């Protein structure tokens, strides 16, 4: 048994921390709050040069061929700086679906360009019904002369407004089971009949969009994977993306803990550093317990996903349930222990708090995942 990171992984962590602290200070994050793209072409190119855009893609597609445990290290570091921009949507949603279910031609067309920073992608999956299961997919895909007609609305779609390609999950049949009858289509964002609107959101470091499909016609080459059989690869991708999100959340929570601990050491009230009061000390100790536990269950889920272990879905559900609660609690405590300053726009704490809150509900909150756990352990 070895439940630690390798030397290479520790090196990746050190490199990533240095790079991200230089390139993504909070002044940059704040600038990106108002920038609709959430990133700059320069930073995006640098991410590509680091090899991070293709980190988990095979070398044959321009990637680095690393695993999800490696990615966990990188995501933690990105979470520490609340990295804005379409990394998650491009690499872990759009790109990963293409890798998981795409044809050889689709992979060759898109993955090398994603890896090199030339193309961005996303996944249009969720809808106004705000569900995370197969039944939530109601956008219709109807066979028509020349291909398929897509109609309906997708909501909460990450970075659709800057993506070159959208992978759209659509209902192509009303099967007896909801997960039978979902198909995936790879659609250029600029295709006719597609309209994208950027949404004002609480966490402005992650841009969300509404995507309207107004009888958009796509050709047969747009199908990703098998007709009616799209849910299974989609669910695998969502599980993987969820692990990556958990890692990002762990990094953010760790950073909040560090910032708050440092503040508690220097901030004096009633003649003593507030960190010497048990009310503050115990809260910080509880934050540490939550952060360490969040990492443990996330690393386990990353390992299970990498191994293709049968227990991977359970591991992912456990991780998302735990980490969703943990990051929210830690970020809220971070504001509380900073006092009035923690509630200001000038202080960085709200960047973390909002990211925690947004991530808590992305891919299902703790209540949703606890129910998933209940089903998987056959309660």
């Amino acid at each position, binding site marked *: *048994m*070895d*439940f*630690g*990171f*390798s030397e290479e992984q520790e090196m990746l962590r050190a490199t990533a921390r240095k790079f991200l602290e230089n390139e993504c200070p909070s002044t940059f994050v704040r600038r990106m709050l108002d920038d609709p793209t959430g990133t700059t072409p320069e930073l995006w190119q640098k991410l590509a040069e680091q090899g991070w855009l293709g980190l988990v893609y095979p070398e044959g597609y321009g990637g680095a061929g690393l695993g999800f*445990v490696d990615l966990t290290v990188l995501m933690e570091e990105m979470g520490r700086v609340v990295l804005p921009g379409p990394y998650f949507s491009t690499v872990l949603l759009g790109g990963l679906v293409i890798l998981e279910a795409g044809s050889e031609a689709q992979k060759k067309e898109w993955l090398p360009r994603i890896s090199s920073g030339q193309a961005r992608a996303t996944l249009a999956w969720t809808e106004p019904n705000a569900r995370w299961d197969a039944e939530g997919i109601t956008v219709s895909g109807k066979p028509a002369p020349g291909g398929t007609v897509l109609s309906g609305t997708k909501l909460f779609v990450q970075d659709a407004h800057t993506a070159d390609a959208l992978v759209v999950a659509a209902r192509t049949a009303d099967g007896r089971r909801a997960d039978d009858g979902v198909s995936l289509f790879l659609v250029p964002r600029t295709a006719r009949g597609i309209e994208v609107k950027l949404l004002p959101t609480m966490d402005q470091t992650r841009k969300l969009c509404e995507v309207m499909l107004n009888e958009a016609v796509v050709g047969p080459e747009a199908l990703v994977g098998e007709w009616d059989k799209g849910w299974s690869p989609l669910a695998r991708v969502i599980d993987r993306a969820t692990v990556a999100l958990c890692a990002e959340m762990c990094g953010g929570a760790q950073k909040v803990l560090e910032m708050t*601990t440092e503040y*508690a*050491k220097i901030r004096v009230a009633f003649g*003593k*550093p507030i*960190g*010497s*009061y*048990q009310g*503050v*000390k*115990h809260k*910080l*100790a*509880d934050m*540490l*317990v939550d952060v*360490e*536990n969040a*990492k*443990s*269950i996330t*690393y*386990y889920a*990353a*390992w299970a996903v990498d191994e293709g272990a049968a227990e991977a879905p359970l591991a992912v559900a*456990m991780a998302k*349930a*735990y980490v969703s609660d943990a990051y929210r609690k830690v970020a809220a405590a971070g504001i509380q222990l900073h006092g009035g300053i923690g509630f200001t726009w000038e202080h960085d704490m709200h960047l973390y708090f909002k990211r925690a809150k947004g991530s808590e509900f992305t891919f299902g909150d703790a*209540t949703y995942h*606890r*129910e998933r*756990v*209940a089903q998987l*352990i056959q*309660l």
Partner: protein
Amino acid sequence: MDLKPTAEQQAFRDRLRTWLRQNLPREWTSRVVSGPDVPRSEAYLFLREWQRKLYEAGFLGLTWPKEYGGRGLTFMEELILHEEMALAKAPPILNLLGIGMAGPTIIAYGTEAQKKRYPSKILSCEEIWCQGYSEPNAGSDLASLQTRAVQDGDHFVVNGQKVWTSVAQAADWMMLLARTDPDAEKHKGITYFLLDMHSPGITVRPLRQITGDAEFNEVFFENVRVPAENILGGLNNGWQVGITTLMYERLALGFGLQVRLRIALDALVELAKRTKRNGGTATQDPIVRQKLAQLWIDTEVFKYTGARAVTKLLKGELPGPEASTGKIWWCETHQRLQDLAMEILGPYHQLVRGSDWAVEQGIWQHTFLRSRANSVEGGTTEIQRNIIGERVLGLPKG
């Protein structure tokens, strides 16, 4: 990162599992584990014999050096032992304090004579140990202890009182912390003695607990003489000796606790599946489902945080922050588990052993009450939080 065991570790597990299957005294196990029906002296005789068999089969003292009766293996084998024992629902180790604390501390600080004299008798259960740390006014604030040891030639004379002393009624030896320099600072004038419990002047009085059992005791010392050669780790150095090995030992034990927690949770899930509620089973109640699922997650989390800590130990590194969280997490989770058991039992939770209506002979009531001690024994939760705050996060002392 790889959670799979090596071939050697798997072989050790298989050998242990086979041995347990062949040697576990089934009938005794259930009687001893579920407690009160077995006369105390009879249970002790049984547990003593059980530990001796385990030792002779080569399954105790796994991490201790061979020259002192151990096996010279790693923490990995140690945690496999705890896991398999718990999975097999094997009876607990009687000499737990000897194996968990006295032995490793003697091996770390003892003279060659002490290291030859004590550890192997601890493993074979020839000599049972108890821990004389807590006093009526020195529990979590251990450094305030008042029991005094005054030098008289080549002996020390001990006067004072200990309390909450588990297994003192059966113990042959005690790890005794006593004040040897009353003028020194609180932490500095304490000495660690190996005390023969059969010495004249020792009175042991059992204390009845919230469960009705008497697991622990008050111990009174009246002019008890200890030879100076029974000092462990040097005069006035007892504070350091007393606390150093605690964290390491807790780690390996944590794995056993995790598995026992999981066994309790499995039992609770079974109970919930059998319990009718509002026309269905308790497991169909969405709130009970949420609570059970959370307990499942929290029990798994405990395992993986422990695995990270043990990985560091195996690599020869000091355990990091993850090692300090286990105690808080375990007792918080276990108490929540027991609370949920009472909730699932509903009004039946009132009925204890002796009632025909008591669910599962009242075992849940017993474990529920016992669990309240979890956040007090072995350092209260509040002290654990102070330790994390000060030693891990580096916050100033209050």
